[in-house]
């Protein structure tokens, strides 16, 4: 036989493995980096692991991932195994029907399965969260258990169980003592598959969860927008856990089997001749051993994360709870911890990518106490009766608010909203790459062939249309279909001729490192980038821009209005505002904070001061359903172009 491989074959194997393990190796390596950089190693440090343990959100997510994986594995293994056993004595037609149904979640793309369950849970009126996630995980694990166990059951001699029963065993005893031992390998395969699949799942969990319940994948997804070395530390731990489980499951029995094989050579030979049943002797012990180790590991994992999560879990039972829904990367998370401590409560914190996502979530029945949307969305929420009025007598810091940001069109008299941050939209440009004279083109500089392939647009429906409408000289609140279509054509033309990248918050890190010449950004992000990269400058075109306000509002179904007001009041405190501004870089509506920051961190950076007095500057307004739908459709098309 021609066995073994030559040099080139071995080299090829090494190269392939290098490719598979490169991302894993890099992750582990940079998790020990002492600086925030993900490309330059500046020294060994454990700081990201410390930060990880302090991050309550992540610890909670680990708890969710582990407990769901363990429970889903147990339930789906039991359900799958009894079904597989039952199938062997089921009539052909029914059996085929069950197996076909069972194949559906395996063969369907994850995303289709995910939305089908999302539709199911919302039609049933289930509140999305831990339970829906658990049910969904059982739902996709069970089919895999059945496909691993059923072939083993089929190859089983049916006379075995019958014989046991003839000898006086009850069907249950026969199942436990005769059938289960014979199909053990299939069950173990099912357990392993279920656990790892549940533990790693993102797509299905992402669609069926809600109310702040996040697993590891979802938290990573939310964190990927900005450079965040904590993810590397988390990855390293996850990798370690998975590798340890695999080694224990596969390697330990093999080593032990080798040792035992020598001792029991005789027995083995007999086995092969058929004198002994194959499940006897060595194999039995090693499978039992493997099963035991899996169980033990499970217990250790659960116990470990349980003790970590116990704090917050027991807190949820006794303490008051506040559910906050905010844009991603839009608060210094330490402040939430401080609020929890000062007010003896727990904050369930969840983030959205866009105002539209917030609205869709509310529509789907998700419940929150405090939301932090933008102006036009607040106007919509007021009109559609989602909010309750603010009791200003409970806001002790109300006098510290800058009168310039109060009483705007979206909420006259600030009946429902308390400003959080405000700013404008403009173009951040690299002074070394962009000719100052070109700035006179205003928004049309984004169409200047000189900068082809060298710019970021902002991945947001309304802001992108704002840019196009302003460039064409229209109002950004237009409801004229013809104007909207012209703006759509402008965006399509820009996509085709300029090849922009529609970035989210990742634009910040990219512009700090000067990756492109220009980017459409919020003034606050502009200020933050300018404070870290002195080549950058910010300008707001004469054609007018969007002046926006993000504000805190309290929902109608808020469960603890007093605590909600406390939270709003807390965010308006001088020191809290300073800390939050330092982290986010946006313009604070608190006069004292604004003054202090423009003297310190943002000294000399004009982007920190949103301009006023331009007649063409506007605030986004409420859109009727039809107009909103038109924009949404056209935006989908711009992006899909």
């Amino acid at each position, binding site marked *: 036989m021609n066995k073994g491989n030559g040099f080139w*074959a071995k080299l090829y*194997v090494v190269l392939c493995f290098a490719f598979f393990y*490169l991302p894993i190796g890099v992750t582990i390596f940079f998790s020990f980096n002492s600086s925030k950089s993900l490309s330059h190693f500046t020294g060994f440090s454990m700081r990201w692991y410390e930060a990880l343990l302090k991050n309550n959100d992540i610890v909670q997510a680990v708890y969710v991932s582990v407990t769901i994986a363990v429970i889903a594995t147990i339930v789906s293994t039991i359900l799958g195994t009894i079904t597989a056993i039952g199938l062997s*004595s089921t009539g052909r037609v029914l059996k085929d029907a069950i197996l076909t149904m069972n194949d559906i979640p395996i*063969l369907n793309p994850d995303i289709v399965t995910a939305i089908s369950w999302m539709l*199911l849970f919302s039609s049933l009126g289930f509140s999305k969260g831990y339970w829906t996630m658990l049910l969904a995980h059982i739902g996709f694990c069970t089919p895999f258990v059945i496909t691993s166990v059923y072939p083993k059951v089929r190859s089983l001699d049916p006379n075995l169980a019958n014989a046991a029963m003839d000898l006086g065993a009850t069907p249950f005893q026969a199942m436990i003592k005769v059938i289960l031992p014979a199909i053990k390998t299939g069950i173990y395969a099912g357990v392993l598959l279920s656990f790892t699949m549940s533990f*790693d799942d993102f797509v299905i969990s992402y*669609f069926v969860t809600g109310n702040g319940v996040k697993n590891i994948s979802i938290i990573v997804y939310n964190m*990927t927008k900005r450079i965040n070395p904590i993810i590397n530390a988390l990855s390293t731990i996850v990798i370690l856990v998975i590798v340890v489980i695999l080694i224990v499951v596969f390697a330990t029995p093999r080593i032990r089997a080798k040792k035992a094989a020598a001792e029991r050579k005789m027995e083995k030979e007999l086995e092969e001749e058929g004198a002994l049943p194959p499940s006897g002797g060595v194999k039995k012990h090693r499978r039992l051993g493997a099963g035991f180790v899996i169980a033990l590991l499970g217990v250790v994992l659960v116990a470990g994360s349980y003790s970590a999560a116990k704090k917050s879990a027991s807190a949820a039972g006794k303490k008051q709870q506040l559910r906050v829904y905010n844009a991603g990367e839009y608060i210094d998370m330490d402040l939430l911890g401080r609020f929890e401590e000062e007010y003896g409560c727990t904050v369930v914190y969840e983030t959205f990518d866009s105002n539209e996502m917030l609205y869709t979530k509310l529509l789907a029945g998700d419940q929150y106490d405090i939301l932090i949307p933008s102006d036009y969305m607040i106007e919509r929420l007021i009109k559609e009766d989602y909010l309750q009025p603010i009791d200003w007598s409970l806001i002790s810091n109300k006098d510290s608010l800058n009168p310039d940001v109060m009483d705007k069109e979206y909420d006259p008299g600030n009946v429902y909203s308390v400003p959080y941050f405000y700013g404008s939209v403009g173009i951040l440009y690299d002074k070394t790459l962009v000719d100052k004279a070109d700035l006179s083109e205003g928004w049309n500089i984004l169409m200047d062939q000189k900068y082809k392939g060298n710019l970021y647009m902002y991945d947001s429906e309304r802001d992108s249309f704002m840019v196009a409408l302003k460039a064409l000289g229209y109002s950004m609140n237009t409801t004229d279909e013809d104007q909207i279509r012209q703006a759509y054509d402008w965006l399509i033309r820009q996509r085709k001729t300029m090849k922009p990248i529609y970035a989210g918050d990742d634009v910040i890190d990219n512009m700090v490192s000067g990756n492109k010449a220009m980017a459409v950004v919020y003034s606050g992000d502009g200020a933050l980038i300018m404070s870290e990269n002195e080549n950058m400058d910010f300008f707001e075109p004469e054609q007018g821009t969007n002046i926006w306000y993000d504000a805190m509002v309290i929902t109608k179904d808020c469960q603890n209005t007093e605590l909600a007001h406390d939270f709003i009041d807390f965010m308006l405190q001088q020191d809290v505002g300073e800390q939050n501004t330092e982290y986010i870089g946006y313009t604070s509506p608190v006069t004292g904070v604004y003054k202090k920051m423009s003297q310190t961190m943002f000294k000399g950076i004009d982007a920190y001061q949103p301009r006023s007095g331009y007649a063409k500057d506007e605030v986004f307004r409420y859109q009727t359903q039809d107009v909103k739908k038109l924009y949404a459709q056209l935006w989908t098309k711009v992006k899909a172009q």
Partner: protein
Amino acid sequence: MKHYKKLTIPYIVWCAIFIIIPILLIVLYAFTSGGNSVKTLNFTLSNLAKINEHTYVMVFLKSLELGVITTFICFAAGYPLAYIISRAPEGAQDMLIMAVTIPTWINMLLRTYAWMNLLSDNGIINSLLGLLGIDPVHMMYTDFSVMIGMICNFMPFMIIPIHTSLRKMDRSLIEAAMDLGANPLQTFRRVIFKLSIPGVINGVVMVFLMAISSFVIPKLLGGGQYVLIGNLIESQFISIGDWNFGSAISLILAIIILLAMRLMKKIDLKEAEER
């Protein structure tokens, strides 16, 4: 073993609630308008008709194209690896296959995030190139970055089934072919590859299925302007809130997958007959 017949009842109930009804819901939403609650039902074909618009057709074509290319690369690069592994000594084979498997059990998002750090304009690869005095190469937010992410994540699913069928192969057939005067290339083409076709088909189906429906990898490595079917579905459900249109796209996607699998099964049967 007639006593165990009733054991299937719980799962039949489960299937009805968690498999049949949800699928029917997708169909229901795809063929109706009236927003995101099922209270108002208006039958319509407009959701499906909308997919026929040029933009959306292009999204489907782009996804198919990317799926086919990714699958082909995974096959072209994965087959040799599976073949080399199948020629290694028994013990080493187990170790190597385990080494192929391990990455698939580590969270896909975490690995994709690592690729973001590797490929970005000032990422690890570019700073290494910088040390060699080479100008940075723009890799992020391109077809290249999306494809790298997909290949790295999906290739093991090609290798494992191919290896399984290569390993199961009866070695004496190869010897027989050689004895009958076939040269190594002929032996490979006529015997080895033929016998591994079931594994190849399994791998192709799995990789294609994952590649065509992925939305995380294109979103993270391709940027906001990189829209594949998965991203289209996600945006309809998460940000735009048009569940009817989203369901219609999902339905079409499910049908495409079904057809692709039918086709593969046919090829498999034809090959089996020839064997």
